[in-house]
């Protein structure tokens, strides 16, 4: 289980769990974002090996009712995507911070450090993130 206080967040409702040893950030969307979207039925993720740039759209998350864009929270190379969530997008709703992770990106620690902490993110979403 991810410790929600130890990970970072963006204003675009991604979460980022950085492992300093490997330099790899695991990225997903928050449960707040998943609730806002409704039932997620499709995720489109960049292929492993793709270079993504912080702030740019790098994927899509579709629910029955709407389409959300996935923004890269950090700049770096995609090293892995979650094939399980591609096959079963409902994991984004049922376990947003766990099995519903989307991709892993090799990133700079300083870029992750600059993201929002949980308190700052919660203040954006009214506190129920």
């Amino acid at each position: 289980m991810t410790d929600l206080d130890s990970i970072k967040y963006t204003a675009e409702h991604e979460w980022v769990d950085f492992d300093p040893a490997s330099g790899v950030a695991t990225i997903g969307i928050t449960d707040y974002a998943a609730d806002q979207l409704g039932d997620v039925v499709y995720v489109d993720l960049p292929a492993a090996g793709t270079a993504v740039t912080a702030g740019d759209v790098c994927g899509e998350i579709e629910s029955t009712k709407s389409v959300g864009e996935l923004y890269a929270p950090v700049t770096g190379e995609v090293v892995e995507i979650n094939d399980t969530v591609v096959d079963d997008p409902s994991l984004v709703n049922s376990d947003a911070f766990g099995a519903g992770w989307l991709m892993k990106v090799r990133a700079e620690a300083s870029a992750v450090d600059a993201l929002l902490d949980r308190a700052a993110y919660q203040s954006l979403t009214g506190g129920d993130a």
Partner: protein
Amino acid sequence: MPSGIRHPNPGELMTDPTSPRHTVLRDRHEALGASFTDFGGWLMPVRYTSDLAEHHAVRTAAGLFDISHMAEIEVRGADAARFLDYAVSGRMSALAVDQAKYTLLLDPSGGIVDDLIVYRAADDAYLVVANAGNRDAAVAALTERARDFDVVVDDCTDHIALIAVQGPRSQEIVEATAQITALSQPLSDLRYYRRGHAEFAAADGTRVPIHLARTGYTGEDGFELFIRASLAGELWDALLAAGEPLGLVPAGLAARDTLRLEAGMPLYGHELGLDILPAQAGLGRTVAVDKDDFVGKAALETVVAGDAPVLVGLVSEGRRAGRAGYPVRHGDQTVGEVSSGALSPTLGHPIALAFVPPALAAEGTELAIDVRGTAIPATVTALPFYRRKK
């Protein structure tokens, strides 16, 4: 009052005076954890837990919908039948008492002001159910058209709540609701697009009339129950309590939209509008062209079928669904536009309604939907996408 539904105290309105409006069932929805969305000027439950779970519940058991945002307009008077024959597209004079009909309110140029369900309440009285977002336009058009007729057009939306029970177990659920008594006929005898009468026994011992119509917007069997606004909460609670053991869940507008889309039913503002003629939307059958005169008749008689786009169903493989506004392509050309689309929860593949040229509307025609830059192959298919097993 022909309906007998309306609350005796006209000062008792069903909504908060604030805008956008909530229905009288707001506290029930909030207690059930609903998220709300603005729809037609009303804050309506979009989902309670999961749109997909609510959708599947309606297909396999039943869902409970608050549709009190819909407008109810009474038409009463000696000329009621003759007036509606003039004011709407279908022949309302042909309806038996307690029979309902789906019909269109056209403007003089033949465009669609709204789509309606009209119930005949008596020889000289009808109840018109209009879309929430078109309430003012429908009331205004009917009132304006009533000038030369002996009728009263009366907007009673604020007095009447409407609750739908939809799904294969709907009849069992209504029958299991002990507070619904004195049914005018066994529900098994109540046919599609007919309504029955009953009483609702309120907690304080009073009994009030309700109407149960075998109608709906989901493609399943089901009922729409009309009750005075002040007792809607009690009816909601009674249905939910009786229905929960049978699989009934509260269901929001998200599920309602995917359900109606699978059933190939149009939604105003998507498949219907002032710039869309009935035949374009596949609703030519709802226009009784042989009536003496009705608003829109002259314009529709002069229309040449021509190249005006027509509504078709499109099916695709995979999971990427076209959405309203996405271009439809044929080869390199943009030939049309999606009006509604979703990944069908029941069928498991994308479905869409789209307007395309008649030459590309034949079943089996291979088109594509431009899904944010990617052309997703889509095949024209017969509607509805989903038909329930009888």
